């Protein structure tokens, strides 16, 4: 591997990026997915965390352009140079440019260049790596089409990036491999493609004020939404995800965009119907269904599709009862019961939460079923309830799941 002269690197672990425009060759969601997974390759072997910005100045500005595009390195039409990127620094430092005259694709086919592979290489430059002369290394200068479904970051690249940033803080629970490209739906909150506007050169890089993730054991920690997913438990707050897995002892820290790049941050509620391998996310009066990484087509849908009256503009929490096959939706001081088999709201609802869930006399922020018991989160506390006896068993701190 190699680095640039004087080995420029980002001086903080939180690095921001922004996608300025899109290629017409691919769905916007596929572009976002490819770039998010390319970042994940690097974050999984370093302490770096990448946060996507949708406006303003980010450390790494990503754009598609052809020919002369405002820097001294014009692109050369189809073939030849595919893309380039600048080492960490102010202004154009870190930025990555992709030649729009190429045919970009989300698959590794002969008919085009795989955006994930090229983006992963270019982002290596954005982080401070130069080219490697190791055939097969990601930072090898020549484009090498390969199967991206089982793509793992080669050791030479890991050595190079860790020489700049060191190893990750905790063992990366996610392998450094990309997942197979999935069918994804149209964008939900993407930035509409804009002409790359000439940017005034900042006199100095003002580190974008990126929100910081609350500490795992912060006694005031609260959550927006919680759900199980294929045996794991995901805790959501803003753009952050805490991932508790039965397979790893440590809590893994991710962002929503690293799993579902096209979903907006700040869920209101989430729940899993495990037998269908389906998780539903709710934000305002819309909801999405995902299976693993992929978002089911046709989403988002209005929550009224589930049977809510139009007076309900958002829900606070949701939890699926694996025993009764019913989902409970919590809104303010009332709740609904939804029959997952008939896909309809049950008669006699809504009912008062306090009438049926002893000890839960307030709004529910998030809800979870685990090992047969229910957990209702309110602020920095959670209430463990035996739903059969409807008895409140105990009150815990919301983050008691994080081995504090």
């Amino acid at each position, binding site marked *: 591997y190699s680095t*640039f*002269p004087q080995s420029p690197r980002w001086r903080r672990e939180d690095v921001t990026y922004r996608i300025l425009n899109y290629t017409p060759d691919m769905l916007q969601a596929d572009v976002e997915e490819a770039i998010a997974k390319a970042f994940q390759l690097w974050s999984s072997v370093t302490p770096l965390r990448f946060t996507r910005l949708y406006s303003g100045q980010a450390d790494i500005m990503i754009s598609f352009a052809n020919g002369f595009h405002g820097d001294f*390195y014009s*692109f050369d039409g189809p*073939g*030849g*140079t*595919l*893309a*380039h*990127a600048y080492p960490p620094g102010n202004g154009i430092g870190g930025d990555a440019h992709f030649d729009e005259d*190429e045919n970009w694709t989300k698959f590794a086919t002969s008919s085009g*260049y795989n955006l994930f592979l*090229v983006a992963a*290489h*270019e982002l290596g*430059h954005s982080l401070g790596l*130069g*080219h490697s*002369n190791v*055939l097969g290394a990601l930072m090898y*200068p*020549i*484009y090498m089409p390969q199967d991206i479904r089982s793509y793992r970051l080669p050791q030479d690249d890991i050595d190079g990036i860790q020489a700049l940033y060191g190893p990750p803080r905790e063992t990366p629970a996610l392998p450094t491999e990309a997942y197979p490209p999935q069918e994804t739906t149209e964008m939900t909150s993407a930035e509409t493609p804009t002409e790359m506007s000439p940017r005034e050169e900042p006199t100095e890089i003002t580190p974008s004020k990126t929100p910081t993730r609350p500490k795992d054991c912060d006694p005031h920690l609260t959550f927006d939404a919680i759900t199980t997913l294929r045996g794991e438990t995901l805790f959501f707050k803003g753009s952050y995800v805490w991932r508790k897995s039965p397979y790893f002892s440590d809590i893994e820290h991710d962002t929503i965009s690293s799993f579902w790049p096209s979903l907006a941050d700040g869920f209101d509620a989430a729940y899993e119907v495990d037998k269908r391998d389906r998780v539903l996310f709710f934000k305002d009066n819309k909801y999405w269904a995902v299976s693993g990484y992929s978002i089911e087509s046709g989403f988002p849908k209005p929550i009224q599709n589930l049977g809510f009256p139009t007076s309900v503009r958002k829900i606070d929490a949701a939890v699926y009862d694996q025993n009764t096959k019913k989902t409970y939706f919590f809104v303010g001081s009332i709740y609904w019961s939804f029959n997952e088999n008939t896909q309809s709201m049950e008669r006699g609802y809504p009912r008062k939460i306090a009438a049926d869930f002893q000890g839960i006399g307030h709004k529910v922020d998030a809800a979870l079923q685990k090992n047969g018991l229910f957990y209702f989160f309110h602020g920095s506390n959670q209430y463990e309830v035996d739903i059969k006896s409807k008895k409140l068993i105990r009150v815990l701190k919301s983050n008691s799941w994080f081995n504090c």
Partner: protein
Amino acid sequence: CAFPEVPDKENEDMQFAKKYLENFYDFKEEKNSLFKSKNLNHMTDKIREMQSFFGLEVTGNLDRKTMDMMKQPRCGIPDVRS
């Protein structure tokens, strides 16, 4: 009018290679150099440097393998920089 000239393949390769070495191997041709041979030697050294980077046989000549490697789609960042 006369048929177009048959492109001089060798010269075409030479021009392509010169551009490639300028882009990726920091080759600077001394435009006003009186000594053409000096430029050629300098370019031969840069060809050797590129062949060494890619593990090709280091001949200093624009042989077939070297030209093929130069024509591969690639990243626009130099392999060698001053």
